[in-house]
């Protein structure tokens, strides 16, 4: 059963315990200075962002059809059955196409390392296989972030929208974005007001590439026949010309 996260920004109190738990789980140093940096970086794979009174959390969306997985030339990224999009460091060659392609601008890079890695949230894949929840869900004191079955998380989000329509902007971010994700977000205000990109196409992204890539076999076959044919025709012509010249 695929898992997913539901993050309800209307409940979030901005305590940043999710950041801290995430850093601990990934063996990253975490201090006040890093806490104040409100953007993803090699120091921080999830972040709380402050918008006046409101908070919003950013992490990898674990797309259903992830751009990053589709573009990686060495299949270093993988969408697992349980939901997480995971990274296989030993395969990576560091082309950074995943960073360029991700519609949510999530992957970050260890720019100052000699053996650099791409870094991003992996939805605590190690925890999920054990049947546990993610570290951020585990620690959140107000259950602003919860983990559960993907369909159940969507149902729960819908329930909240129906039960308290006055408190929510009536949409779930992540259901349609990039063709659907494994992280769902609720907000009191339109999503772009608290830092979520609302320009992202509502369809699967890899299809934009596949529409072209799928024609490669045709190009190869037709191209070869065409080239061979032209060669044959034009060289025939030469032969004929030579013959005629001889007579």
């Amino acid at each position, binding site marked *: 059963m695929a898992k997913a996260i539901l993050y309800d920004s209307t409940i979030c109190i901005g305590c940043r315990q999710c950041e801290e738990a995430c850093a601990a789980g990934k063996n990253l140093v975490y201090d006040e200075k890093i806490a104040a940096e409100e953007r*993803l*970086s090699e120091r921080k794979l999830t972040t709380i962002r402050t918008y006046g009174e409101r908070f919003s959390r950013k992490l990898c969306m674990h797309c259903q059809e992830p*751009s990053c997985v*589709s*573009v*990686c*030339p*060495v*299949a*270093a990224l993988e969408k697992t059955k349980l939901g997480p999009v995971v990274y296989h460091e030993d*395969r*990576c*060659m*560091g*082309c*950074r*196409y995943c*960073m*360029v*392609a991700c*519609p949510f*601008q999530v*992957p*970050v*890079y260890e*720019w*100052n*390392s*000699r*053996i*650099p890695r*791409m870094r991003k949230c992996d939805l605590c894949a190690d925890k999920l296989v054990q049947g546990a929840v993610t570290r951020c869900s585990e620690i959140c004191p107000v259950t602003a972030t919860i983990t559960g079955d993907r369909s159940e998380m969507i149902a729960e989000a819908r329930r909240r929208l129906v039960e308290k329509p006055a408190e929510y902007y009536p949409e779930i971010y992540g259901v349609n974005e990039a063709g659907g994700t494994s992280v769902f977000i609720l907000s009191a205000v339109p999503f772009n007001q608290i830092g979520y*990109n609302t*320009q*992202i*196409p509502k369809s699967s*992204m*890899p299809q*934009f*590439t*596949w*529409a*072209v*890539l799928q024609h*490669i076999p045709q*190009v*190869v076959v037709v*191209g*070869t026949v065409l*080239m*061979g044919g*032209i*060669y044959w025709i*034009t*060289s025939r*012509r*030469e032969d004929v010309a030579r013959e005629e010249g001889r007579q």
Partner: protein
Amino acid sequence: MSGRSHFNFWRLMGAALMLVAVAATVLRFGGSLGASTNLSDQFPWGIWIGFDVLCGVGLAAGGFTLAATVHIFHLKRFEPIVRPAILTAFLGYGLVCLALLFDLGRPWNVWHPLVMWNPHSVMFEVGWCVTLYTTVLALEFLPLVLERFRLERARLMLRRIMIPIVILGVILSTLHQSSLGTLFLIMPQKMNALWYTPMLPILFYVSAIATGLAMTIFESWHSARAFARQLEFPLVQKLSRVLAVMIAVYLAMRFMDMSARRAWTMMDQPGTERWLFGVEIVLMAVPMLLLFREQTRKSPQAIYLCAVMYLLGFVTNRLNVGITSLERSSGVQYIPKWSEVAITLGLVAAGFAIFRVAAHHLPVFEEEVPPLPPAAWEAEASDAYSIQSGQ
């Protein structure tokens, strides 16, 4: 005499550029990508991709264009251009591969796409095509070396399989020249609409062909000055006509596509994008219009300048696609670090230098002499032997 000092000036320049590039190399491999570039999480691709790879591959497109013209279409009068074009292409691809090693975070894993497959990735396809095509170019280039060292038997064997090799080269080039455009298709929301179009693969392909032609004109001019060897002028004139037509085809496709997508409205948006777009279009349209005039095609110098102008337009286009179009959505401004520029210029200088050496020592600007029939091999061999022992 002034020609001589001019020549030395460029040599010095080249040497200086390569020296600075060495310093930058130390920074890159002694340090990290962070130390040697201005790239960031918001802007992960810079000029090493935008120029060295996107432009490098395009500038080397003459190899497949001319190989097809002469060997497949049998337009034999272009034969004298094939060799310099293939040499340029071979060098070009070599330098692109070298540049890639600078850009990759883990260059020692550069071979991974060959064994760790992801057929859904455009980059995977480009990796395979470029590897295979560089091999094809090496085979297309080999006859020159064999001819120089009089290895007739090998030459004859290679000649027998040349046509399939050339066809393979054309197919591989078609695939990866266009795929460099496909690379960008997955980010419609990130790219500026002046450049994002589902047509990118086709536009990349057509402009690469035009670039191959322009590069051939460019080389002919320079080799005329350096070696007093050049193409016959009528041939250059023919090429310049084809170039004008290819640019026209490209611009027509581009404009129709812009209209269909209603992208012209982007020109009303303030910012540097529209200016850079304008530069790119003007640098392509002006040489096209000039080349359509007979007056222009009478002067070798004018043709050369038109080719250079188009090439600058082409480079601007690739940089716009790879960098300008992505800047706004990334929220940061990317200006390359000195070391990024140094590596790029160093590679270009290296390209010129190697071309010069190769053109000096290999029969690049000569027509292919048909290999000797087997009966003559022995005499030839003892000949070569006597020359060697004579030394």
